[in-house]
């Protein structure tokens, strides 16, 4: 690892640790239970409410995925590897995409139960963004980088503009790998969703009604989707490396 890379990586780790500390200090002080989800006087079934909220995350997921892909193209095609902005940004993408989805799941539960930010939509959206952008961006970047440079050269050599090279060659050649990354990210998001629902289910259920059927009812389909998406992700991946 060269010197500047080491420097930017250290800065990123430091900043993430500071953000994490501030977050923990702020949130541990003021845990106020969400009235609509509190266990005593329930008007709406909390799991149902949570599911509605999670359902509304789908369009946000869609938008975030598209943005991440665009973001990855900007980094790869317009910022050279020595570009300072790129060097500053990349460590965050790498670090955040390496965090296990379980952590994000617990974070989501924590936020929804204690309603830390004014609305749990905001919390869920923020967690979703944190979960989706790094992994999708990183996998898209790898997919773009795996496109043979000789193809780019050939397209430039007959007068292709940057946009033409991207749309006619880079995008079609990397599409499957990008899609694979998106499927992988979706499976991660669904894992977080399952964790979230499962924990709330356990918290809010009267233990006499808690059965395997009940759990399967709530998260069975989601877990099945997790499997399907991760299998698709592996199968359509073209370039491994």
């Amino acid at each position, binding site marked *: 690892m060269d010197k500047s890379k080491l420097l930017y990586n250290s800065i990123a780790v430091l900043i993430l640790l500071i953000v994490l500390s501030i977050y923990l200090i702020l949130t541990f002080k003021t845990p106020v239970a969400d009235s609509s989800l509190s266990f005593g006087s329930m008007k709406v079934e909390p799991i149902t409410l949570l599911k509605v909220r999670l359902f509304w995350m789908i369009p946000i997921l869609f938008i975030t995925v598209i943005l991440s892909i665009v973001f990855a193209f900007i980094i790869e095609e317009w910022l050279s590897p*020595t570009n300072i902005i790129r060097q500053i940004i990349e460590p965050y993408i790498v670090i955040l995409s390496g965090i296990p989805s379980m952590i994000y799941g617990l974070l989501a539960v924590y936020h929804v139960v204690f309603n830390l930010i004014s609305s749990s939509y905001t919390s869920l959206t923020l967690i979703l963004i944190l979960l989706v952008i790094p992994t999708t961006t990183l996998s898209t970047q790898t997919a773009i980088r795996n496109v043979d440079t000789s*193809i780019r050269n050939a397209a*430039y*050599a007959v*007068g*292709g503009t940057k946009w033409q090279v991207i749309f006619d060659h880079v995008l079609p050649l990397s599409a499957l790998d990008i899609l694979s990354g998106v499927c992988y990210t979706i499976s991660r998001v669904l894992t977080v969703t399952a964790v979230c629902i499962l924990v709330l289910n356990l918290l809010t259920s009267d233990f006499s009604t808690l059965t395997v059927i009940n759990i399967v009812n709530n998260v069975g389909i989601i877990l099945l989707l997790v499997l399907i998406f991760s299998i698709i992700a592996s199968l359509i991946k073209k370039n491994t490396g």
Partner: protein
Amino acid sequence: MAPIIEVQNLNVWFGKSRILKNLSFDIEPKQVTAFIGPSNCGKTTVIRSLNRLNDLQADYRHTGEILFNGKELYSNKNRASEIARKISMVFEKPILFKKSIYENVAYSVRIRGRRQMSLINNIVDECLMKVQLWNDVKDKLHTDPNFLSIGQQQQLCIARALAADPEILIFDEPCAQLDATETPKFESILQSLKQQVTIIFVTNKRRQAARVSDVAGFLYNGELVEIGKTEQIFTTPTDTRTENYVTGRLG
């Protein structure tokens, strides 16, 4: 005739390492200019500076002046893509797009915004004829080019470059991947093209350069040791390094 390319004191760096040192030369129109020299002497770097493909390298930097038809090549008024089209290039390995034979050639026309089918058809046919590939592929235009031999694929690459309507055509060791039986055909194509375009041609095969070029330049360690009429370079070189190279004692 005025030179089509004039290079004055060209220095090239990749990052901190200086790859080309003070190159000055002219390229005359409608002639074959060959750059010869051992591998890693900077041949590819010279030609990629001429069509601005080096712009794609993040750590590329150059000083000195390059004029194309009397105008600054690296001026902001020129779009790099337009320069790369006018000074088109064929690479060492045949690089084909994942498209049919027809579409590979048609691509060079389409990206210029020409969409008229009859025009595209004409250009494709004409370019395939110029590279002597027409008879081999005329019934299979819409099939994948994978069944072609390496030599034929290289011919297709030349046809695609011609379809871009270049003024200069650059070849970077075009025969490196070809077997000996395919080389004569390539040389005859080169000879026939020189009426239409200016050709710059890089090779580490000395005898091939002697056979096909009008002007030859010898590059060694990033320096242009000598450039002149091919006959003179190969028979009465002025520099001993050139003499050692062309006689096979060096590189």
